[in-house]
């Protein structure tokens, strides 16, 4: 593994594989819906069957790419609870690590949309006094998300400091 993005301790804590499943479902369904509508319009108005075929092929390509992207994206997410700070890494091509000292966490959000809820996962976001800190972990199993929130809030309180 790239030493630049090596975990601070032993390993990165992965996010739930359900994030991958959810992303796959979303990309495939949306690609098919959009491609279906476009193909239907072309077929009904222009009746250029080659264009319908082209759109269909492109849609399949996008869906396949989305299928693979979902896996890589999910695998790229990881977090590590250090003794003093939380590290979050993400990104496949554009990689990033965000490290937030516990004492700097002002509040923690757990959000879960309807689809995420049905998969039993949630997104944990950390907020510091700097709005440019974008520390969020998607696809955390719901129970783990609550535990993480409580722990971070607790640590933020005990180590917390003014700005």
């Amino acid at each position, binding site marked *: 593994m790239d*030493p630049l993005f090596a975990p601070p301790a032993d390993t990165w804590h992965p996010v739930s594989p359900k994030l991958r499943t959810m992303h796959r479902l979303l990309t495939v369904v949306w690609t098919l819906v959009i491609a279906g509508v476009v193909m239907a319009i072309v077929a009904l108005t222009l009746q250029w069957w080659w264009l319908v075929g082209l759109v269909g092929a492109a849609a399949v390509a996008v869906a396949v790419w989305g299928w693979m992207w979902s896996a890589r994206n999910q695998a790229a997410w990881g977090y590590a609870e250090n003794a003093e700070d939380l590290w979050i890494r993400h990104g496949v091509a554009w990689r*990033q690590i965000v490290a937030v000292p516990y*004492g700097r966490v002002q509040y923690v959000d757990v959000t879960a949309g309807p689809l995420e809820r049905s998969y039993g996962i949630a997104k944990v976001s950390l907020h*510091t006094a700097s709005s*440019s800190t974008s520390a969020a972990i998607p696809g955390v199993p719901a129970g783990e998300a609550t535990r993480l929130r409580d722990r971070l809030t607790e640590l933020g309180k005990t180590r917390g400091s003014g700005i």
Partner: protein
Amino acid sequence: MAPGSDQPLPPPSPEPAAAVGQRTHPASALVRVWLWVAAGLFAFGRDLVEGGESRSLLSMLWIGLAIVGAAALLGVAFGYLSWRFTRYFIDGREIRIERGILTRSSRRAPYERIQAVDIAEPFAARIFRLCELRIELAGGDDSRVALQYLRQSEADRLRHLLLQRAYEAGSQAVRDAVPASVAGAGATDALGRAAAPSLGGADDGTAASTEAPITVPHLDLSPPILVVPPLRLVVATVVSAEFLAPALFLTALVVGGVVFPGVIVFGVVPLLLWAGQVIMSRVVAQWSFTLRRAPTGLHVTRGLLSRIAQTIPYDRVQAVVVRQAALWRPLHLERAEVTVAGGSNDSDESGSATLLPVATPDEVRMVLGELFTDVDHVRIPRVRAPRRSAVFAPVGWRFRSAGSDAHAFVTESGWIMHRTDVVPHAKTQSVVIKQGPLQRLRGVADIVVHTPDGPVAAHGYSLDAADVRALATAQLTLARQAREERGES
């Protein structure tokens, strides 16, 4: 505006009966009249534009006079009423300001919450030789109370009184900083000032008060530590891109208008406005910029038309950015801005304040040393961007670096507009490592240290990947140590 700082303070005079309260200066009624006159002129102008063609010149003049006169009368009447209904009360615990004709409002400033007392002179008030007393309070949303308007001597007296009361009431902020001001006249170094809050400032405070009677906590304005000469301000502005751009465009337009008389010189007005705006904000607003040590922060007074007084509180300053445009480099001039957290102070935009409009590198170092103990951004060892990062910035890569020592983290970047961002370790909010696909090919990465929102963006671009990782790891440790030292964690 400096009250004679070597005069002995008058003994705390007994206040007039607190129940009655005191009035501000009667001429306060007139200060805001210009707003009404301006509104009247505006109304008249709209009237002219909308349907003025049908009337004769004379009748228009009369109408204009009538509208503006009525507006002025209204303004005077309203100003008189609001002056009439404004009173301030000084009692044992607080200063209270009551105002409002129909809806009464009462603002309280308890002595123990007072952080700073500033005297500002808005232009309109200066005409009447009046000034405004601004009281900065610690905490809460309503962190400023203003008393409009007072005679200079009265404002000085009140300022003294309030600072003294704040000291007696044990306003932590004022008390902590007292030793520095007692030692006063420039003799204190940054250590003396900054050591007080962290190491039992209360002890120092009592020591100071036993040395001398209670009136002595010398809360007067200390002599300036820095004055920006107006000539330097003018020269620096003239050679700044912000001024040169509109000036060059203007010249081009005028030349074009002379050479080709047919060309409509359309852009002149907005360009003039642009240049004027630059002159207003860079020269007029910063005129005789003076920096002093005050109990709770660096005290700034500036302005040619409106004299602004503001305090940049030491404990709320998060980070500093020092900028140097390419044109300023041969002149050895720099500009410094600070990010101020939760600032309700006079900042241009939220969270930002000008620390130094124009200064030499040595002066910038000196003032930074005032703000943050032991921080000397020039001496901090840095790692430079490697040559292989030149693809991302063919010229600029030479100017990119990042580094840290025991006290602060610093990044540098920018070729045409060079910037140095300095973040004391204790103010680090989070640390980010970033790498795009091209950067990966080149073995470089970005490091960012986040601070609360403001002008500072400590972003180290395209540095060696191993350096970035080492810097980031070190930064987290250093930041933790710094927080622990301050007894925060």
